[in-house]
Each structure stands twice: as C-alpha cells, then as structure tokens.
C-alpha cells in the first residue's frame, strides 16, 4: 500500500549551506510521527522543504506525497492537496482580518481542487465552530492575522487554521514552543481532533512535553541532516532523560 509521504535520500541546501544530507522518512496514513533533535539539525528545514519554500533547494532525493513526486509543485498547490505547515514563527499580517484570510485560503484551495466556493453562511458557521473548539474569542476573527497576538495566541491560531482547512498531512514546526500548559492542552486537543485513518501528522519538536498530550506512533531523531535513530514513544522519554549527546557520540 502507498504511504502518504515518502522521503528518500533527501538533500537540501539554503545558499551554499547543505542542511539535509540524505534524509529518509516514510509516513503512513493514520500515523503520528515526532521528529526530535538538537538545534541546527535541520528540523525546520525539513518542514519548509515539505511546504515548498523556494529559498531551499532540493539537490537530490525525492519527496512523494500520495504517490506523486511533488518537486514541481508550488507551495499553494501542495496546500490545496492537503499539506499544512504550522509555522514556528507565524507571520503577522496587519489589517487583513483572520476571517478574510481564512476565506481566501479555503476558496483558493477549493478552486485549485476544482470544487465550488463555500456559501458565505456555511463558511461563517464552520469557522465559528472551529473557533469555539479552540476556545478562542470569536472577536479575533475580525482582527488582523496574528496582529498583536502573543506567542501562544499565534500558535493557537495556527491550529485553528489547520482545523478550518482540514489538511491530510500536517507538519507542525515547534508548535509547542512558547505555550503555557493550558494553551498546550488546547493545542494538543486540536491536533488530536484531527487524528483520523486518512490523515497523518509530523510533529517537529525539541521537547518531549507535547508528546505527553499527543501520543506519537513513531519518534525519529534528526541530527546533522539525517534521521539517525527511529523508535516508538519510549525513545522520546529516553531523549528527555539523556539528551542528544549519547546519539551523536554513538
């Protein structure tokens, strides 16, 4: 059976700096993978390359999503086909309301997929439902995207966007950093709510904390641009206790 995501021998660089150096990763539908690793290992690069950032150049290797090589797909095409990236540092867009932003995103994705636009009322109801789920103030919908939001609010907004857009593959880049414990729970609930046999999630994180709330099926250690160790949830706890040093030494 085809995996949802299959990465083979991926090499990527930014400028003259090679960051991913032969990364292999295979993610099946219904699975949650955690990618952990020390700073500078290439965790954020992996997220951005998956999302289609153009300043990163894939020099060799392949990324197959739903069986298709997505090398030639633009960021927006990948989004329309169900790849969602949660940003470590979400961008502020003053003056463009969250509502307007979500509507633009949903309708653009539907158009790309050849689906009709959502009726305005249905859309509003849908968004409000998700806002409630994230325990956010509906008034935030008329505020600018992330405008004046705290770090935690921004992360929560990322998950809200994910819930509204209903992607198939979710790549969450350090979504847990900067969250207090209540926010972490809400964010985790959001991620768990999206769990289904058709979807998969990649949690990129530095800490084990998030994994107490979102139970991963697989844990991988990314170091120096490659996956150096893979295991089950117990690997995360081992990393929490021992740090990353023992892996690099090995």
């Amino acid at each position, binding site marked *: 059976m085809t995996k949802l995501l299959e990465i083979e021998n991926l090499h990527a660089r930014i400028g003259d700096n090679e960051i991913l150096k032969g990364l292999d990763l295979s993610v099946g539908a219904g699975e949650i993978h955690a990618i952990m690793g020390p700073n500078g290992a290439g965790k954020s690069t992996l997220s951005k390359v998956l999302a289609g950032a153009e300043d990163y150049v894939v020099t060799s290797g392949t990324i197959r999503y739903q069986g298709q090589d997505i090398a030639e797909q*633009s960021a*927006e095409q990948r989004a329309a086909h169900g790849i969602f990236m949660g940003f470590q540092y979400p961008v502020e867009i003053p*003056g*463009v309301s969250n509502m307007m*932003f979500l509507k*633009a995103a949903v309708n*653009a994705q539907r158009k790309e997929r050849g689906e009709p636009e959502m009726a305005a009322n249905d859309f509003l109801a849908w968004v409000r439902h998700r806002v409630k789920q994230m325990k956010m103030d509906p*008034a935030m919908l008329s505020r*600018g995207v992330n405008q004046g939001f705290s770090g935690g609010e921004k992360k929560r907004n990322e998950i809200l966007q994910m819930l509204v857009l209903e992607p198939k593959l979710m790549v969450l880049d350090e979504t847990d950093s900067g969250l207090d414990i209540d926010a972490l729970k809400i964010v985790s609930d959001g991620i768990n709510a999206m769990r289904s046999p058709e979807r998969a999630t990649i949690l990129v994180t530095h800490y084990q904390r998030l994994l107490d709330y979102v139970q991963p099926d697989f844990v991988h250690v990314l170091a120096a641009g490659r996956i150096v160790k893979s295991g089950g949830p117990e690997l995360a706890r081992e990393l929490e206790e021992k740090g990353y040093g023992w892996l690099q030494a090995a």
Partner: protein
Amino acid sequence: MSDIHASWGEAFARFAGGLPAVDHAARSAAFDEFIQHGMPDDAIERWHYTDLSAFPKKPVQLATAAALGGYARWQLSGCDERIWLNARNVAGASSATASLPSLDAHAGIAGLHRAFAQPGLQLDVGPGTALARPVHALTVTTADADGEMTHLAHRISLARGAAATVILQNVGLPGATRFSTQSLTVELAEQAQLTLIRVQDESRSTTQWLQTDVNVGRDARFQLVNVDLGGKLIRNDWRVKLTGPGASTELAGLFAADARVHLDNQYEIDHIAPHGTSHQYFRGLGFGPSKAVLNGRVVVRPGAQKTDSEQRIANLMLAKGAEIDAKPELEIYADDVKCAHGASCGQLDDTAVFYLRTRGVPETQARALLTYSFINSVLERIAHAGLRTRIARQVTALLGADLDFDAIGDLS
C-alpha cells in the same frame, strides 16, 4: 510674447470680460502675478522634483459645460452630495461666486489659480454644530479638446466646537488633455474638528495642482486622508498651520503610482503654538513606470514648546521602472519637543508571501493581500466603508487580484 502666453491672455480676457469691476481688478492683479513669475520650475527647492515650466504645451481654454448623467457610480451612500461637472455645480447647494482664495503659495501658479478661480464647495458650519452626514464634494471632468481647464476654489469654515467630515473626490473621464488647479482653504476655530478625505482619480491625461491651506485653532483637530490613484502629472501642496495651543493634526496619505504618472505630494505642518501634536502616516506603492515624490516637512517655530510630532513614510516598490523619492524633513527651532520621523522603501516580505501560499493562496493573490495589509493603516482611517472598499479593490486590481473585501466587514 510667445503663443502660449498669448493664449493664456486670451483665455483670461474671455473669462474675466463679464466680471464685476472689483472682482476684475483683483483677478487681473493675480493674473499679472502669474505672467510675471510663470510656472514653477526646479530652481525652487519646493519644486525640486516637479517642473511645470514647460506647461502647457497647447493653447488653453476653460472647460465648457458638459452634459453627463453617469456620475451616479461615484456617489456615496449616506452622504450629502455636491457635484461639479467641469467646474459647474450640478447638484447640491453652492454659492454662485467664488471669493478669491488667499493662498500662501508660490506666486506664479497661485496667481493663475486666483485669476481663474471658480466657485467650488463653500461650507460653513456654525458653533457647536456637528454635521450628521459627511459632505461628499465630487468633481468630474470630461474633455473633448486638448487644453481644457478648470480652477475650482473650495472653502471650509468650522466655527467653535463644530465638527464635519468632507469627502473631496476628483475624478476624470478618459479623453483629451486637461489642466486643473484647485484650492481648498480651511479655517478651524477653537475645538472644531474636521475630517477631510480626498480621493484623486483623475484621467490619465490630467495635469493638476492642488493647494490646501489649513489653519487649526486652539484645541482644534484636522484629520486628512489623501488618496492618489490617477492623473498624469499631479502636484498636491498641503499646508497645515497649528496656530492655537493644543491644536492637533493627523495626515495620512496613500498613493498607487503606475501608468507613467508623475505624482508629487508636499505636506507641510507648521507648529506655531505650543502643545501641538502632529502625526503623519504615508504609504506609497510603485506599480510600474512612474515617479512618485513625497515630501513631508515639519517646522517647529521658536516658542512651539512641547510639540509632539511623528512622521512615518513607508513605500513599496512593486515593479521595475517605478521611482519613489521620499524626503521627510524636520526643521526645529524649539528645544522642548519630541520629534521623530522614519522613511523606508522596500518590498513585500518573502516569508509572509510564503506563509500565505502554504495556506493555499496563490502568489498573485498573496501579494495583493499583503499589499492591502500594507496600505490598511491608511485605509482604516476612512470611515466610509463603501469608499474604503472601492479604493482597496481598485489598488489591488493593479496587482491582477480580485480580493473578497466583503469578508472584512462582515464581523466588524
């Protein structure tokens, strides 16, 4: 005398022939001033970037009355409409004669304007009165023959404690070349408050000079939003004098320069009295071959202590061939003041474009949304939602995008 001078003379003779003697004398004096000094050229520091000395290239004549029914598309909901078609009042009350505006301006072109001044908006608001609806002063020009011109003089006077919102909209239908001068003199008595929204969307064959002189009295407030969307050669002079203690002003401006337009905005705030505050926010967009100039000058006179002044200019270069020249000036003769200004010129943030694209928004639309975000800090100062949306739509359409602006309003 050159043909051009002769044709100015003839035009003036035709225009002034039937005027009462007193008026005639004053206008003749103004006309002589114009002939003596001529059009401004770049030897004058204030005209460093704009040279009108070669203008006009063709003989001149006042635009004739035109029949036009189609201006409903510019009308705005909930406003008190006053309409001028080729400088003739066709709707809304207006006085039939223009008192000559006393302009604190460059002799040559001010003389020309005063010589030909035609009656525009004359708005007097009595003490303590707040106008319930915005006044929408709409000027529309058409031109069948090259060289037609209009010279509207507007005046707004707010008595003590009065408040009003005026929307001055200058639009032009495509057609032959035309030239216009426009003046607006504003007197704000103690505690009066005026919000002026000016939208310039002239035809691509229009040369226009506008001068606005504002006197802001004690604790009074003048708020401006100026939007430039059209024209061929546009020069706007804004002069705001804070003459009473505690007077305040906020000037906001937005321009979208494309289609080889030459656009020059000169803003000057003169702090004469103490405890004045002035804030300026300008956003500019360079879309294509075009030249846009923004000069923002703040003068703090001796004795204008406790002045608080801030000026922010930000421009976006969106295409090759665009030129944007910015000059934020401070001239300070008092020491106990707080003054700052900043100017920047750059591009859309690539990370933000990427962010939008990862949400499935195509690049064109993403850029338009971010451009909208960029100009929103000026747009949001326009209280009339319909007008605001219309401007936003027109600007983002230049980027080839059609954004759903209705989504902005439905929750606010």
